[in-house]
């Protein structure tokens, strides 16, 4: 259809050089050839004349150019921020879920040095889901075996086990009731392997919401940092994209 409505250039060797009319460095004879070409070529004359009409129309405000939207660079940046933010948020949440939480012991003023032997999982005052948790502690030099006791502060529940390694899982035959506070005592044999005869800690069991809230508040510091940065980037990206789309 355009074949019947759109002009064709009569001599493309010159038509392709039409832009040189704007160039002040174009030799005079070339300018003369191009201008003469325009006299005969409807396609090139149209292009040249439209340029002139466009210039006068814009200056006289009879024509307007569409309002510039935010640069594509900004849109790309917002899109990138959204993607990177979502990825970082997911990575942060995964780290919070997988890595050990920060022990409240760190924030307490204790006389024990940071590298003193201790129960390492659950960390002090950690909230876990209950069931059959795994317990772990710092291996003690000279200890042949360990006697582990988990006792509820709020009920009669008590479980004991013995192991030669520095970790143990609560037996499948019992399950820690939810919503209770527990005290863990690890006593090595011989008992002098531990500085004070045994290692002690406390933790709690709770429902999923309580566990998630605890993890968000006390999860791995690096995980929380990555997650927070991701959430901020995601928020910025989404808001930026919404604003640029509205414009």
């Amino acid at each position, binding site marked *: *259809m*355009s074949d*019947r*409505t*759109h*002009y*064709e*250039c*009569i*001599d493309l*060797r010159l038509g*392709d050089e*039409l*832009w*040189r009319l*704007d*160039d002040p460095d174009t030799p005079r004879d070339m300018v003369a*050839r191009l201008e*003469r070409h325009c*006299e*005969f*070529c*409807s*396609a090139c*004359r*149209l*292009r*040249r*004349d*439209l*340029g002139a*009409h*466009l*210039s006068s*129309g*814009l*200056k006289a405000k*009879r*024509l*307007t*150019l*569409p309002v*510039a*939207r935010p640069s*594509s660079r900004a849109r790309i940046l917002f899109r990138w921020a959204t993607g990177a933010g979502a990825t970082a948020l997911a990575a942060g949440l995964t780290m919070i879920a997988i890595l050990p939480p920060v022990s409240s012991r760190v924030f307490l003023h204790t006389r024990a040095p940071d590298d003193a032997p201790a129960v390492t999982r659950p960390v002090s005052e950690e909230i876990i889901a209950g069931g059959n948790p795994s317990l772990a502690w710092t291996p003690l030099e000279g200890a042949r075996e360990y006697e582990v006791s988990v006792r509820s502060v709020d009920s009669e529940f008590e479980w004991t086990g013995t192991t030669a390694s520095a970790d143990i899982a609560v037996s499948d035959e019992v399950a820690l009731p939810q919503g209770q506070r527990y005290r863990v005592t690890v006593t090595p044999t011989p008992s002098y392997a531990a500085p004070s005869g045994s290692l002690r800690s406390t933790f709690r069991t709770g429902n999923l919401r309580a566990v998630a809230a605890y993890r968000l508040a006390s999860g791995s510091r690096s995980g929380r940092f990555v997650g927070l940065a991701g959430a901020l980037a995601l928020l910025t990206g989404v808001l930026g994209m919404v604003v640029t789309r509205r414009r």
Partner: protein
Amino acid sequence: MNHDSQHTGEQKLAEAIKSYRERRPGADDQLLGLIREPVLESTRRFLGDDADWTDDIVQESLVATLRYLDGETEFSGDLVGLSVTIARNRCRDLARWRGRRPQAEVESVSEWLADPQQNILDKLVESELFDHLQTALGHLGRDCHDLLRALFLDEIPTEDVRRRLGLSTVQGVYYRKAVCLEQLGSVFQGLVAGRSRDETGHGARMPREGASE
């Protein structure tokens, strides 16, 4: 065989052009004899049933071809293609004219056809011209908008525009402007012909630097 006859035809045409440029007696008739047939055939094919104007368009196109040749100090292009294209552009003008003014007087059409400098813009009233231009502007890409704004509205020096676009020469700026105007012209012609945006298929991107250089 075909190749040989084509070669002979090109040779004949080159000799005829040379004779015409040397102003030898009868050279114009000889040259016109070589290009008349393809122009006539192309015009007939374009106009179809509207054959009343075939002879006028062919005649005007041949005259325009000779005038074009007169102005070129050295012509090495395709003269047949050039004359056929002139004729086809005149056919487009005629079709547009008749589409817009079906009751036009025969005499005025003849006069208009005889003037090679007439074109589509002359036949549009100013308001219609700007309406179409405004619509066509909306079909251009953002790169073109930015460039046209910088050159026509903000009147930023070409050198500054070049730097802003990251081009190595100002010629690249001129070339890009020409490409934008070409796109504008194409959309514009589609609008004048009453075609939809989808058919025109515009909004093309800017060429990369160096496409012209």
